[in-house]
């Protein structure tokens, strides 16, 4: 019998997280507005004082190419020790945000951290209340996935100064939490027998991480497409997009995220097959959830190939990655709610 008191606190923490995320999202939006050239000019007097620090910031986001092998932000930046010649500089300097804009971005990120901690606390308390891994139904999966996504974003944003991405990550997270609370809510209870396995931890945790990383990669992909378009057709009125890192660097960041997501997703697929062998007697039966897991894997595999093919421009490849994420969303919503199969764990009737 789950502890009603803990469930209450868990839900309270979830509501609080939603409130904090809402404020954080609004301030992230204000940050983007403050990044705009008009606002930046107004703050340009103050900016000169901050140039040294801002220079460091641009190096941080310039090395955002991939998720592996990077220098920690506090290490001396290698750029000043290495002269890049003969090739176009990989990342021309980003327009430095004004001091006020950076302050706004910092506040928004601190609030995102606060919301994330509340959300993680909510997930932990739910787990303690039912004494099992807290991702046994759709509500719990959505909450845990949102927690993983916001945690991943906060960690990355602190290291790489991705405050400008906040609106596009915290927004979807807030939407997910709203759906979880008001459409998918399921009473705290014990697990059904098929889920009582150590693979619930291995398979589902990796799936949650994969979805979290894909989510940030998706947002990054969209920002890249917008930025790329405005680089090709410079608009008459400049806005915050012009102050974002160059499109090529955004594309590399999106690729890095999707690549990590793809590795995690491959692991999810294999771990799921091993669990299916234990639970359903066959490692692959083309159950709807298996079909869609496979479809997502194939679409992201196509993305990896498209990006490795010389003839394909990164923009087209990015569209494939976005299609892959749409499949992730369908897999979670339509497949859970409308298709009948062995993965009937939504907890909804």
């Amino acid at each position: 019998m789950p502890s009603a008191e803990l469930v209450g606190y868990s839900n309270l923490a979830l509501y609080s997280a939603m409130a904090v995320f809402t404020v954080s999202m609004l301030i992230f939006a204000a940050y983007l507005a403050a990044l705009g050239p008009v606002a930046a000019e107004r703050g340009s007097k103050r900016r000169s004082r901050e140039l040294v620090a801002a220079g460091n910031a641009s190096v941080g986001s310039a090395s955002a190419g991939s998720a592996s092998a990077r220098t920690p932000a506090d290490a001396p930046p290698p750029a000043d020790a290495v002269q890049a010649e003969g090739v176009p500089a990989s990342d021309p300097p980003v327009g430095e945000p004004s001091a006020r804009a950076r302050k706004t971005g910092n506040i928004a990120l601190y609030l995102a951290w606060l919301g994330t901690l509340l959300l993680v606390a909510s997930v932990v308390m739910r787990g303690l209340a039912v004494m099992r891994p807290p991702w046994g139904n759709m509500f719990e999966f959505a909450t845990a996935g949102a927690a993983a996504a916001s945690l991943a974003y906060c960690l990355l944003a602190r290291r790489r100064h991705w405050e400008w991405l906040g609106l596009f990550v915290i927004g979807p997270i807030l939407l997910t939490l709203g759906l979880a609370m008001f459409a998918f809510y399921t009473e705290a209870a014990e697990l059904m027998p098929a889920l009582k396995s150590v693979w619930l931890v291995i398979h589902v945790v990796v799936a949650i991480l994969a979805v979290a990383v894909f989510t940030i990669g998706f947002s990054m992909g969209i920002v890249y497409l917008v930025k790329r378009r405005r680089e090709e057709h410079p608009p008459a009125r400049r806005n915050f997009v012009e102050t974002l890192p160059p499109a090529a660097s955004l594309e590399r960041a999106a690729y890095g995220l999707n690549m990590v997501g793809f590795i995690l997703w491959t692991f999810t697929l294999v771990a799921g097959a091993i669990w299916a062998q234990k639970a359903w007697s066959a490692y692959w039966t083309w159950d709807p959830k298996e079909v869609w897991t496979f479809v997502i894997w194939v679409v992201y595999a196509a993305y990896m190939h498209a990006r490795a093919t010389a003839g394909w421009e990164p923009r087209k490849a990015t569209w494939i990655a976005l299609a892959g994420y749409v499949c992730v969303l369908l897999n979670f919503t339509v497949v859970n709610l409308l298709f009948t199969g062995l993965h009937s764990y939504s907890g909804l009737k």
Partner: protein
Amino acid sequence: MATQTPPRTPVTQPRLGPVGWARWAWRSLTSMRTALFLLLLLSIAAVPGSIFPQRSIDAAKVADFIASNLTTGPWLDRLGFFEVYSSVWFSAIYLLLVISLVGCIVPRSRMHWHTLRAKPPRAPRNLSRLDQHVELSYAGDVDSARAAAAEALRGRRFRVVSHDDESVSAESGYLRETGNLVFHTGLCVVIIGVAVGHLFGWRGDVILTEGDTFSSTLSSYDSFLPGAMTDPEKLPPFAIDLRSMNATFEDQVGGAQFGAPRSFTADVTTTEQPGGPSTQSEISPNHPVTLDGADVFLLGNGYAPVVTVRDASGAVLYQQATPFLAQDNVYTSVGAIKVGAARPTALAFSGFFLPTAEPTYANGPTSIFPDDRNPELALSVWEGDLFPANRPQSVYTLDTTNLTQLTKADGTPLLIRLQPGQTFQLPDGRGSISFDKVDRFAGLSARVDPGKELTLVAAIATILGLMASLLVRRRRIFVRVRPTDDPSRTLVTIGGLARTSDPGLGAVLAGLRTELSKGR
């Protein structure tokens, strides 16, 4: 319009012979562009299998679908939409992909083999032309600087070679291409493993009621699905005695979770070989038992009410636990009791078993909770020819073509409601039916898949290969050493060349610079 058209000279194209065409086809098939197209096609082709019911999963559902979609159903059937994953078009796509894969793996393996044995190339003359480079002044002569640079690169797991006295060439990241090849080869092996499982594996399902014993032979399975190469005469001869089947359901929490299953456990006594020692064990979801190479899973359960049918003189015509199949989450179950021994004509009962009956029957016979809190049988009675023309039929339903239903005096169908311990006297001296007690049954599935270990090993290799191919960076680093005016110092230039986008290269060069600047 134009009055003068210049005479057209046909473009001379090389004529392709059959070999030429074959080469062209092979080149096109194995190109990355085609692979990409096939991948996208595969993802789209897999989707219908999740939308339409599949015969391999639920044949009855397919029949229902066709019956309720009379125009589209048969066409979808003809086009293979109910067997997507064995359809011609799906198979064609993945077989083309496999060919494309092999056509990619073979030449790249050959190339990689040569690369692995080759030495890093000579250092370019002007290192400042490379992607990135650093310079430093080394405290030592030219030879010691060269040795120190080579040592530092070896320490970073580079393959190092000196083609002359003033340069060092180093390369690392061979694992990237190795991983890539392992990944793609692993995928092919996964497909081989799946094929082995399909050809040599088998699956047998059986419904076993409490107290019954099952011996694994071909005829004793309720359904048996052999692979194309399975020898059904050589099944492992294990036996399973179901001592009890236990199930618990949620009754503490309300809402959608009320009545959700919480545990299923089959207590069994097993013997691997006839006459061998017997073992007591439990089978539950996620915990199969392995008997003589076959894995036995608990995949279903339900109720088997024990029913006795007697004739007018009280002689027992039928007495056994009769499985009723659950139709929903609250175990509203359907089944049939066929009494062929009844005279003058055979008797049959069909209807519902309700573990917790809703007493008013306002919506017909329904159960309101999956556990047996208020069990009840609701049966209609039939007589006549049970097996018309000896057509095959399910044990859970009646073929009523040659049966007539018994009615009450007012002409309405006779409905019998029985609780455990109760007996109903059938009209006109046909005898009686008693509901003695409720047993449970276990749906067991024995399965042998000789390809699964191969598939597992290949899948793990695939993950490792994928990680290597995406996370390892292929780098070349060249060092040139040059004497300066000061004989105790040497000018060292280090240049780096990345094969793909490589944000970490700068850090490696900076690290080398720091290490060599310190001197010894």
